[in-house]
Structures are given as structure tokens and as C-alpha cells.
């Protein structure tokens, strides 16, 4: 699972689009999703579906599964949102709660779709460049670079350790699983320390000067294909107009 979003991010229909453009587009949509009328939020959700499954060519089933897992949080919170205790101690479903839950659904759906658009089309390296442009402190980016570089290696190690334990009849029963997991984490930590030593040498051999720097963002070619740009502008304008109409109607 850890690898799948990452794999799509490096290999999708919108890979070539500038990460700055995608991040900016997502930022606009986030603001819109937070502030706009539920119908506009629903429109954002549908529109993002077009970008994710259509333009970026992410498999529908994968996106649907991702959405379903994310919405579990919504489902889990639902009872707390709609159930109320009355004065006699009985439970009842509150109408305002239901309205609130419905409004929350469109907002979270729109926001989640925007998040999914960003992370499924933009590789982490692109996000680093965006953060760099946003003047994120250098140290944070350096730490993130190293973390990102080794997440997968450590995940593979953990997976292999887990399989090796299973192969020898381990990881069964509560006590056994807790004990074996503890050993696994301990081993992983030992590996982390080992990795540090090796990496410190590797880094020094390559003339480490105290900094880990990224290459500057080189923009060659257009940030985004013209057709997509027009679509983005026109649909955004339409959504804003719709939102304006809702505001105007409410003021009457």
C-alpha cells in the first residue's frame, strides 16, 4: 500500500505538469471547497474525479478504494455528529445534526478529492520543490529528503522480518505477536543505526559539506498543456459564478 500512491504519482497522465502549477491549483480548490456552497463542493468533487480518473488516468478502482478508506473516518464520526442525548437520557437523531453531517460530507468529499488529485499526480520530489519555493526552512526539507529516501527501504526490511518470523511459526497468538513485533521493531532500530553509520561514510566520501541541496527547479516547456489550462480557467470561473449566484440569492 505504501508504494501504490507513490508509484502512480511518478507515472500518471499529469506527471509532466509543473508541480508548482498543480499545488497552486489544489490550493485554490481547497479554499473553494472550504468556503463554498455544498452544491459547489459537490461540483468540485465531480470535477476532481475527471482530473484524477480522466486526465491523470488513475484506475477508477484504486481511487474508489482510497476514497472509501478515507471516508471511514467520516463514517466512524457519524454517530457522534447526529445522535443527541435528550433530557431523559434517551438517544435521538437530531435534525440539525443530520444537516450538519450532510454539509460535512460534501466538504470532506471535495477536500479529499483535491488532496487525492495532488498526491496522485505529483511525486514527492515535486512537492519538495514546491516547499522549497515556499521558503520552507532548509533543514526541514533536508530531513524530509532523507526520511523519504529510506521509508521504502525500512518498510521492505520490516516486511521481510515479518515474513521470516511467520515462516518459522511466529506472529501467532496475542503474546506471540506482541513479543515478535517488539523484536521486529528492535531489529529495525538496530538496522537504522547501522544504516546511519554506512550512510555517514557514504556521505563523507562524496564530499559532504554540511548541506544536502536539491537541484533548482528548471522549467522547460509549458507548465501545463493548453487544453487543460483552458479547462481549469473556464470551470473555475463557472464555479465562482455559481458560488456568487448562491451568495446573491441568500442576500435577497
Amino acid at each position, binding site marked *: 500500500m505504501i508504494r501504490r500512491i507513490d508509484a502512480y504519482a511518478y507515472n500518471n497522465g499529469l506527471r509532466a505538469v509543473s508541480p508548482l502549477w498543480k499545488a497552486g491549483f489544489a490550493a485554490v480548490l481547497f479554499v473553494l471547497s472550504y468556503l463554498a456552497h455544498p452544491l459547489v463542493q459537490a461540483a468540485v468533487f465531480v470535477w476532481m474525479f475527471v482530473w484524477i480518473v480522466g486526465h491523470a488516468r488513475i484506475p477508477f478502482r484504486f481511487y474508489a478504494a482510497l476514497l472509501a478508506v478515507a471516508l471511514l473516518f467520516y463514517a466512524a464520526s457519524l454517530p457522534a455528529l447526529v445522535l443527541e442525548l435528550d433530557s431523559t437520557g434517551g438517544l435521538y437523531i437530531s435534525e440539525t445534526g443530520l444537516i450538519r453531517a450532510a454539509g460535512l460530507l460534501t466538504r470532506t468529499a471535495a477536500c479529499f478529492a483535491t488532496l487525492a488529485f495532488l498526491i496522485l499526480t505529483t511525486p514527492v520530489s515535486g512537492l519538495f520543490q514546491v516547499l522549497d519555493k515556499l521558503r520552507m526552512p532548509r533543514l526541514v526539507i533536508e530531513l524530509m529528503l532523507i526520511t523519504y529516501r529510506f521509508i521504502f527501504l525500512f518498510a521492505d526490511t520490516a516486511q521481510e522480518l515479518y515474513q521470516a518470523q511467520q*515462516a*518459522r511459526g511466529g506472529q501467532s497468538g496475542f503474546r506471540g505477536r506482541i513479543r515478535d513485533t517488539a523484536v521486529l521493531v528492535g531489529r529495525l532500530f538496530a538496522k537504522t543505526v547501522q544504516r546511519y553509520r554506512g550512510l555517514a561514510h557514504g556521505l563523507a566520501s562524496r564530499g559532504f559539506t554540511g548541506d544536502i541541496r536539491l537541484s533548482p527547479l528548471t522549467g522547460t516547456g509549458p507548465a501545463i498543456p493548453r487544453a487543460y489550462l483552458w479547462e481549469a480557467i473556464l470551470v473555475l470561473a463557472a464555479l465562482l459564478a455559481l458560488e456568487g449566484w448562491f451568495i446573491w440569492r441568500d442576500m435577497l
Partner: protein
Amino acid sequence: MNDILETKQLRHHYPGADHPALDGLDLKLPRGKKTAICGHNGSGKSTFFLHAIGLLRPTAGEVCWQGAPLTYRAHELKQLRQQVGLVFQDPEHQIILHTPYEDIGYGLRNAGLPEPEIRERTLRMLASLGLEQLTDRPVHQLSLGQKKRVSLAGVLALEPELLLLDEPTAYLDRLSERQLLAELDRVHGSGVTVAMATHDMNLAYAWADWVVVLDQGRCLLAGTPQDVFVQTDRLLALGLEPPLLLDVWHSLPPLIREGNQPPRDAEELKRLLAAWPIS
């Protein structure tokens, strides 16, 4: 029933991967034989091993143990993993506890054996692999060759019927490799079916009774070393180098080769050459 383990049209697709790791694999491990499973990194050898002990489940197709398809019930898996021992490529990943003594007992304890028997079997394993000196030495102080032997001991302690080894000689120096192979021969001699994955064709040729060649998750060749390695062109097309010894043998004058089986190791070749009158 001649095959201890068999896969039928086994397919495995890791989520998110471009290609299936196993793509309709039909592979048989003949009972009582020493099988070498050859192929590149990424040809599906390790994935096959994980299927053989039921750690992965097929996307399609099936795995048969002693003729019966696996059902993946917890009880069956537990038993299977006692009957099939898997030695991973990296002993660092396989050795779970911190001394050889403790680690070898790990599988036995999981199998629920009584403590005295665990102790007895562990000590026996240590002795038979020449690890007595290292019984209580912390694992991180051992050399790679020693770690490999400890991980082998941990698996053998369960007395499996089938022993699988993933690249057992990778990165071993020649001396440790020899020791390990000698040990495998002893294990095989005691009636265990042994199969190893390797990309070292020289090793496969010298060691195996039965050779299987995998490529891109499929089984392309299977047979005796003589039968498989004679297909030089097919091997080369797969990017696999035929064994040097066989290569040399076939370039020798026919006079020398006549009436002789190709030699399996350098000593044998030397003997054959020495026996040749003209030299």
C-alpha cells in the same frame, strides 16, 4: 506422488506493480532431489518461495503440497511451515533472537515443543553445524558465513521435509560456500528434499540433480543439468551464462570427451584429462 511441491498456473501480482511477479508458473520440485532454481534477480524465484510456505496467496492458480492444493487455513499453514523450511537470502532478516542458541530454539518454541526437547534439539543442531563455539555469542559478532549457518540451523531444527534456500551462497566467500554446500549435502543425504534459488550457473551445474529455469515469472526449462545446460542458445538468450566447466568440456577435442559424461567439477575434469593417454 513424485513431486513434493508443485505449482499450477501460479500467478502473483504485487499491488501497484507493472508486471506480475509470477505469470502462470508451472513448477515441480521432485521428491528427494536437489533442485536448482535458476534465473535473474526479479525472475520470480523469491516470490515462488513465499508461495511455497503459504506466506503469499496466489492471484490465480494453486500451490500443491504433497499433491493436495493449499487451503490456507491457519492450522494447515502452521503445519506446512514446519514441513517446509525456508532459508532467506539475508540471514540478518531471518535471525530473530540474539544468540545462536536462542534463535535456533525460536521455531521449536513456536511449534510448541516441550523445553527439554527444544534444548536437546538445539544443542544437536549447533553441534552438527559446527557452531558449538558460538552458542552464546551475540549474533552481530558473527561473520556472514556463520550467520548463514545459524539461519540454516534455525530452519533445520524443525526437521523439515523440504528445505528451500534463497541464494544461499550470495556474497559468501569460497570457503564458507564450500562449508555450506557440504552441509546441504549432509541434509540431503538424510532424506530431505532440497531446492535452492541461484543465479550462479556454475553452482547450479555442479550441485543440482534437477534444474529449473525461471524467467519473468514463468518456468522456461526443467530437466537434469545435462539436459538443461546443453541448451546453450536458449540460456544465452535469457542472459544466463552456461556453466564454464561445461563450456570448456564442449570445446575439448572429441577424442577426450568420447564415452565420458561431462564432468561436474574441476577435480573430475582433471581426472578425465589425466586418464587420457596422449597427455
